[in-house]
């Protein structure tokens, strides 16, 4: 690529920003279009988006992009002029073209324009430019799918207005070669990376509020200067100064807290940004699996810190795929079980105190605890005795272990036993917790509990020996004072007997190689932390208190110190280390 000068660079960046935004919306619109194919406004909007992309690409000389966009635009044009009726096949082709456009744009963004294979996608679209209305199946040359004697359900059945129904294409498709050329899934991977993570949109009102607070801060600073001057000039006595200073401290604390909250808020993005790509994914996966799904999304306006948004997408996709693959039954199975043929999948997000809770709930077949237990014993992860003493919740948690899968056949989507483990790792990275609820025959629910923000945390200040450490409060389940005498040993692991379970213990002093201070105390404190699905108890000497701190990274050379998540600077200027509960739990394994 020829070197770009700064004017061109600006043009390019503008093009990328605008195009990516359009593409983002396009996905959502296209899936919506499928259920409302006569929505002229929607169709026009989609057409205009592609048209804009084509124009901009042409202006900047991105020929491949122009070709693909142009053909797609033509098909859309026919659709909106009612020369063509939307069918799932047309939608597939258009979606594939959109994915290709995304891929090409991401190439441009990466500065690495490749000669992508566009011919296939374009040729899938071409037939729709020439044929006249009605069912495309009449012409075998356009659709590789042979017209075997299978009743084709009408592409769009009447939809209930309050749900997104994904219609079923064909009931039993094993015999038919599904010739879907470069399957959208392959391109999907790249397309999903197309978020613009380097900029953020901020509500102007938020900026105004911020400005107000900064104004307040300036006023307080002026008062501080005045106060200092008064003191040094002897215009105020000690008592007066103390009084004024005390008030000033309170006001500055307040203003600073407000500022902090507001800036943090600017980092928050509605979870909708992640959720919006799911209708498309659900549609694709459901079609592949020949299942009917009724997807409902709630609470998408719930806001999350953007660092969490970045990380949460993959685990959610995996959980959704699992729900569709393992959880939901085929329409026939469901009818046999007395359920509606379309399975329900509810994705919701909400705030709970200092956490955000994301739930994926399906009304499928639920998790078979017996099978899970047996599989675990088979794989040597448990003994029969251990299994016998496990509660249902503990058995459910087994599916989060690496290598675990009760699926007999490994499908392309899931069943390799890799996925749930990855989900768990990702959630742990975010200092979150996974909870699984399930009932045989009724369905399952996966709950993800994540802290609201990663940048500033409430922490529990503890003392170990002479050193001070901070434990993120979001991970702390409870604390109590115990006598070390009451610890037991089970197989070399120190544990504490709790009400209805046994808590593995970690002596922070040992793990962090801290010198013993004086003689051993008669009592100590145990901080029970939860990380993903585990619970462990951290043994410390003293609980000092609670503090809200801003997390500072330890820098690239120290990011991987086991057990340490980061650092912060205390009020007295000292650096204090923040414990990583998930890491400590892992180390204990």
């Amino acid at each position, binding site marked *: 690529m020829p070197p770009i000068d700064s004017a061109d660079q600006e043009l390019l960046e503008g093009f990328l920003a605008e195009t990516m935004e359009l593409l983002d919306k396009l996905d959502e619109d296209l899936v919506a279009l499928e259920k409302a194919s006569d929505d002229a406004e929607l169709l026009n909007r989609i057409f205009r988006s592609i048209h804009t992309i084509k124009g901009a690409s042409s202006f900047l000389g991105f020929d491949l992009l122009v070709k693909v966009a142009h053909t797609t635009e033509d098909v859309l044009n026919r659709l909106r002029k009612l020369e063509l009726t939307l069918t799932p096949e047309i939608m597939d082709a258009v979606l594939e073209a959109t994915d290709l456009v995304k891929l090409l744009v991401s190439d441009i963004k990466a500065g690495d324009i490749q000669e992508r294979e566009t011919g296939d996608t374009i040729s899938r679209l071409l037939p729709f430019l020439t044929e006249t209305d009605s069912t495309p199946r009449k012409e075998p040359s356009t659709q590789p799918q042979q017209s075997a004697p299978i009743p084709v359900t009408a592409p769009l059945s009447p939809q209930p207005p309050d749900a997104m129904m994904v219609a079923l294409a064909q009931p039993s498709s094993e015999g038919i070669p599904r010739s879907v050329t470069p399957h959208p899934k392959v391109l999907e991977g790249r397309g999903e990376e197309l978020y613009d993570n380097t900029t953020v949109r901020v509500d102007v009102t938020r900026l105004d509020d911020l400005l107000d607070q900064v104004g307040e801060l300036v006023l307080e600073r002026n008062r501080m200067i005045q106060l200092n001057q008064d003191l040094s000039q002897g215009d105020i006595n000690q008592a007066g100064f103390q009084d004024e200073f005390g008030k000033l401290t309170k006001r500055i604390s307040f203003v600073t807290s407000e500022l902090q909250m507001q800036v943090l808020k600017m980092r928050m993005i509605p979870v909708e940004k992640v959720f919006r790509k799911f209708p498309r994914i659900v549609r694709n996966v459901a079609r592949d699996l020949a299942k009917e799904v009724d997807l409902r999304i709630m609470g998408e306006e719930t806001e999350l810190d953007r660092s969490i948004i970045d990380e949460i997408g993959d685990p959610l996709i995996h959980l959704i795929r699992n729900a569709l693959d393992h959880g939901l039954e085929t329409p026939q199975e469901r009818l046999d079980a007395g359920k509606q043929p379309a399975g329900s999948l509810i994705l919701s997000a909400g705030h709970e105190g200092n956490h955000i809770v994301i739930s994926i709930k399906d009304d499928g077949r639920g998790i078979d605890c017996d099978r899970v237990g047996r599989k675990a014993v088979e794989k040597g992860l448990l003994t029969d005795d251990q299994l016998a003493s496990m509660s249902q919740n503990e058995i459910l948690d087994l599916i989060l272990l690496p290598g675990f899968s009760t699926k007999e056949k490994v499908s392309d989507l899931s069943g390799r036993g890799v996925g749930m483990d990855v989900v768990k790792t990702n959630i742990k990275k975010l200092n979150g917790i996974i909870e699984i609820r399930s009932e045989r025959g009724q369905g399952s629910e996966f709950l993800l509990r994540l802290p609201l923000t990663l940048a500033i945390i409430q922490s529990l200040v503890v003392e170990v020996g002479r*050193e001070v450490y901070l434990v993120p409060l979001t991970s702390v389940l409870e604390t109590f004072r115990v006598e070390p005498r009451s610890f037991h040993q089970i197989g070399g692991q120190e544990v504490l007997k709790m009400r209805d379970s046994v808590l593995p213990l970690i002596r922070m002093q040992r793990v962090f190689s801290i010198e013993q201070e004086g003689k051993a105390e008669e009592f100590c404190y145990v901080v029970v932390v939860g990380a993903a699905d585990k619970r462990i108890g951290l043994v410390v000497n003293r609980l000092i208190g609670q503090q809200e701190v801003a997390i*500072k990274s330890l*820098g690239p050379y*120290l*990011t991987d110190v086991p*057990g340490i998540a980061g*650092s912060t*600077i205390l009020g007295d200027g000292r*650096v204090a280390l923040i414990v990583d509960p998930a890491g400590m739990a892992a180390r204990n394994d």
Partner: protein
Amino acid sequence: MFNVPAVHKSGESHHEQVKLVSFTLDQEEFCVDVLKVREIIHVPLVTRVPNTPPHLEGVINLRGKVIPVISLRKKFGLQNVEKDKQTRIMVMEMGSELMGFIVDAVSEVIRVSTDEIQPSPAKMSGDIDQECIAGVINQSDRLLVLLNLEMMLDHDERKILIGM
């Protein structure tokens, strides 16, 4: 940017001058490129970081930034001593990050021409990693060992992080 020049053969003559900061460790004198030194500070409270190599003393608060601090004595296998009034931390730029190095004392900034930099003899006192030694400067009254501390990092630090 001053790349420690490849030690040149005699016969070539460079008349480039470079500025170096000299410091002492266990009676020996060392020096580094002044352009890499951000600042030189007294030793503040160092917070120990568990599960790190012994020569990583810990981290400090540098005006709101948390940076790691390495004891060069420990790193080079020299005997460890108590800090005294002359002990300093040299805050240096390591790639894009800052890192502090504890030294016994910082002497001065000297100007040498590149011809004065000679290749180092095979082994020196202590256990100095050979990669760090960029050369020696033989002046009439003293011998200075020129260090390139970034080399030390490439070799060692990444290893720490992975194999723990």
